[in-house]
């Protein structure tokens, strides 16, 4: 077993893991942060998306040992006091989800793409192309794209169209 020191949702901690343990396994099974989902476990669907030092990554495609010294934010860390983040509220308002399985990953990717594009106006084209790593089997994406545009606006971002 290897000790990994990392920060999860602002809390510094040390977890003891096997080298082959995935980051998503630590989050879900050790820390009981079950908001991060496992859809495919083959690096395709993005349901497991979390932020690593602010960048979106697939937690099923990272070993926990690779998070040594890093800061991880999960969907639970987005609304720490139980009040929905404006991006989450926008998903509820604009039909950004049906079954909800993809939603935590969608929201984490949405927040990352708003941050990544903060120096230019956000367009539908940018939103769609930067959602390529996230799949949804229910909505057909139109509601998700509308939610992200509305959520970004609520966060103070410039949105075109």
């Amino acid at each position, binding site marked *: 077993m290897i000790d990994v020191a990392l920060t999860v949702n602002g809390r510094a901690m040390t977890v003891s893991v096997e080298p*082959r343990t995935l980051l998503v396994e630590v989050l879900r099974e050790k820390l009981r942060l079950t908001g991060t989902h496992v859809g495919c476990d083959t690096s395709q669907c993005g349901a497991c998306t979390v932020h690593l030092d602010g960048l979106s*990554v697939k937690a099923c495609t990272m070993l926990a040992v*690779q998070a040594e010294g890093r800061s991880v934010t999960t969907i639970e860390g987005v609304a720490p006091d139980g009040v929905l983040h404006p991006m989450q509220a926008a998903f509820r308002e604009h039909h950004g989800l049906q079954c909800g399985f993809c939603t935590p990953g969608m929201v984490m990717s949405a927040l990352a793409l708003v941050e990544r594009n903060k120096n230019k106006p956000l367009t539908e084209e940018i939103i769609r192309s930067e959602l390529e790593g996230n799949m949804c089997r229910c909505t057909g994406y139109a509601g998700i794209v509308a939610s992200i545009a509305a959520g970004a606006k609520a966060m103070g971002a410039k949105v075109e169209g």
Partner: protein
Amino acid sequence: MYAFDYQRAKSVADAAAAFEKADDAAFLAGGQTLIPTLKQRLRQPSVVIDLGTLTELKGISVTQEAVIIGAGMTHAEVAASPEVAKAIPGLADLAAHIGDPQVRNRGTLGGSIANNDPAADYPGAVVALGATVHTSTRELSGEDFFTGMFETALAPGELVVKVSFPIPRRAAYAKFRNPASRYAIVGVMIAETASGIRVAVTGAGPGVFRVPEMEGALSQNFSIAAIRNIRIPADDLNADIHATAEYRAHLIGVMAERAISAIA
């Protein structure tokens, strides 16, 4: 995943030494290929040597002649680099269209070329731009580095350290991507370099290859018309559920035209 030991490399020399000592080691960079491979139990290394914290593999520098990119630079870092975008916009554009944002935040240049997936994008740029691959022991041209499907000239324990891309007069990459994975079904990079026009094709064959006939025609006349009648034989091209060999052969012409029209 089978169990393995884990070691965090402290330097390139330390990584190579650890590899030497182990029965069957594997280097880990961004993990976007290695981790899925381990999950499928297609590899069973005794130890995984993590290159993720090596500052020696990081960084981008630009000289008069070349853009030098560390093997550990992620696709997102290359795509977002103003220096790369200014010196070789076609390269920044290529990096920006690898996989998806999450893959780009982890996957690296070194991992991509060491893996040499026949559908990977970077091999096209390494060969088209006439880049030099700097390893822990030597320097290799793209043609010498890429030796076959998923195969390279890397000896066991030899690391990719950086890649030096000569700055071309102009270059563009056009990819017909697999809509699910974004890997290249066919990708064509065309560059006008100091040593002439170079056309490299990825995705279509067992490995990246050049098209001398197109290079000759474009040297005479850099236009779509110059290559319109060049037919690529389908004989040695890949065929799978995504595209037949004939379709890939056709796409080489189409992607070449798109690359030319981007910079003509």
